[in-house]
């Protein structure tokens, strides 16, 4: 039977569940499932598509068209999200992955994918084979409570942090407990006043209008978009405002996490200011999270000014498996200074 790609509709929920059930039975990792209720599970504007063979789901993907500013020119770019194919458990369907990708590109030539877990995963390999451009979104961290951090990292099963810290201790000549002192020495930013805000208002629109032309590529961050990304109804999202910009933060108390043990992890999810004001926003975000009592602060940032702001505030860089993939048509636009972070793509769902 031929395979046809159709938009998700409610009456297809049961066959999506059957598809997911086959992946469950084959032991496929939990993150690779099609949403059985896309409207409830995904950001507004998302549209899921299913590859159907005689009424049986063989794969699917989601597109989330978003407005991006390219130095002030607003264009639609779509997030290519979570393509899953039955080809991962049954080679008869090896063609489905390519079919999904080609279908998505036909619908929206300007596509990007984000995250994906590292270069060796199937999706980045496929995108690379299709001529997409892949690059990691740099990862930064700052340890607030070194003793607690080291105790928890030692207990955590994942070895990534331990390896990273051993490298760091060796390269700086300091023991692990010297981290705190090194971070303080590396901090060169001035104090910045800030206030916690409950919602994004007119002030966020005004800031967006002033700053978006300064970036080669940046997802729309006006007040309306920010209220969708970080709804007031979700108490996880913390918002601070400074004279120059804003940041959205998450403060998560981990419990037996594979990488973080029982640490309290603060994340600078999203942020905006003129590039020259990035340092003030990063410092304010860091101080706010420290005051809340987090043990560790993380951020993924792609723009040179925000990366420099993190370094100037004593953050260390580490290996990143948070990848940005851009379609050939998007790559041809020649953007270099994009501002992409954990607020893009799926949003901060995995933090």
């Amino acid at each position: 039977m031929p395979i046809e790609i159709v938009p998700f509709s409610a009456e297809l929920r049961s066959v999506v569940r059957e598809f997911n059930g086959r992946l469950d039975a084959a032991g496929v990792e939990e993150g690779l499932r099609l949403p059985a209720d896309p409207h409830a599970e995904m950001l507004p504007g998302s549209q899921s598509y299913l590859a159907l063979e005689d009424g049986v789901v063989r794969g699917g993907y989601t597109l989330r068209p978003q407005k991006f500013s390219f130095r002030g020119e607003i264009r639609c770019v779509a997030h290519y999200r979570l393509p899953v194919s039955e080809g991962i458990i049954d080679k008869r369907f090896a063609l489905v992955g390519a079919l999904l990708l080609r279908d998505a590109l036909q619908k929206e030539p300007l596509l990007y994918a984000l995250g994906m877990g590292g270069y060796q995963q199937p999706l980045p390999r496929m995108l690379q084979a299709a001529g997409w451009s892949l690059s990691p979104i740099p990862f930064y961290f700052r340890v607030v409570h070194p003793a607690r951090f080291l105790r928890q990292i030692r207990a955590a099963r994942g070895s990534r942090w331990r390896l990273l810290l051993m490298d760091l201790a060796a390269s700086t000549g300091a023991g692990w407990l010297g981290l705190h002192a090194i971070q303080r020495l590396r901090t060169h930013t001035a104090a910045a006043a800030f206030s916690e805000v409950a919602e994004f208002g007119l002030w966020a629109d005004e800031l967006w209008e002033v700053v978006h032309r300064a970036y080669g590529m940046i997802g729309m961050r006006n007040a309306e978009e920010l209220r969708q990304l970080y709804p007031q109804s979700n108490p996880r999202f913390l918002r601070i405002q400074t004279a120059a910009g804003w940041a959205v933060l998450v403060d998560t108390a981990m419990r037996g996490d594979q990488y973080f043990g029982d640490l309290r992890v603060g994340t600078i999810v999203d942020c905006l200011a003129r590039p020259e004001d990035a340092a003030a926003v990063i410092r304010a975000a860091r101080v706010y999270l420290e005051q809340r009592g987090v043990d560790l602060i993380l951020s993924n940032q792609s723009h040179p000014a925000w990366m420099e702001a993190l370094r100037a505030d004593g953050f260390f860089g580490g290996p990143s498996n948070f990848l940005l993939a851009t379609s050939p048509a998007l790559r041809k636009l020649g953007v270099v200074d994009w501002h992409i972070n954990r607020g893009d793509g799926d949003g901060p769902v995995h933090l």
Partner: protein
Amino acid sequence: MNGDILSEVCGVAADVFAIDALSLTGASSPEQIEAWDSVQHLSLVLALEDKYGIQFAPEEMERMKDLGAIATLVRTKIT
């Protein structure tokens, strides 16, 4: 004509999958060739598009179940 194209398609597939072209036939499919996964399937599609200067539409790609079907599809696109 189709035989010639089939042997060319087998040659391209052999390069993509890094296997001996003589081991491939029109009936060769992902189930029989270990290296033929989703990523390599896409690589094969792109290699064929490049070789013949053609582009496959999604509705054509869904018919690519084995090398014979792919050769038939290529033939219809170039004649």
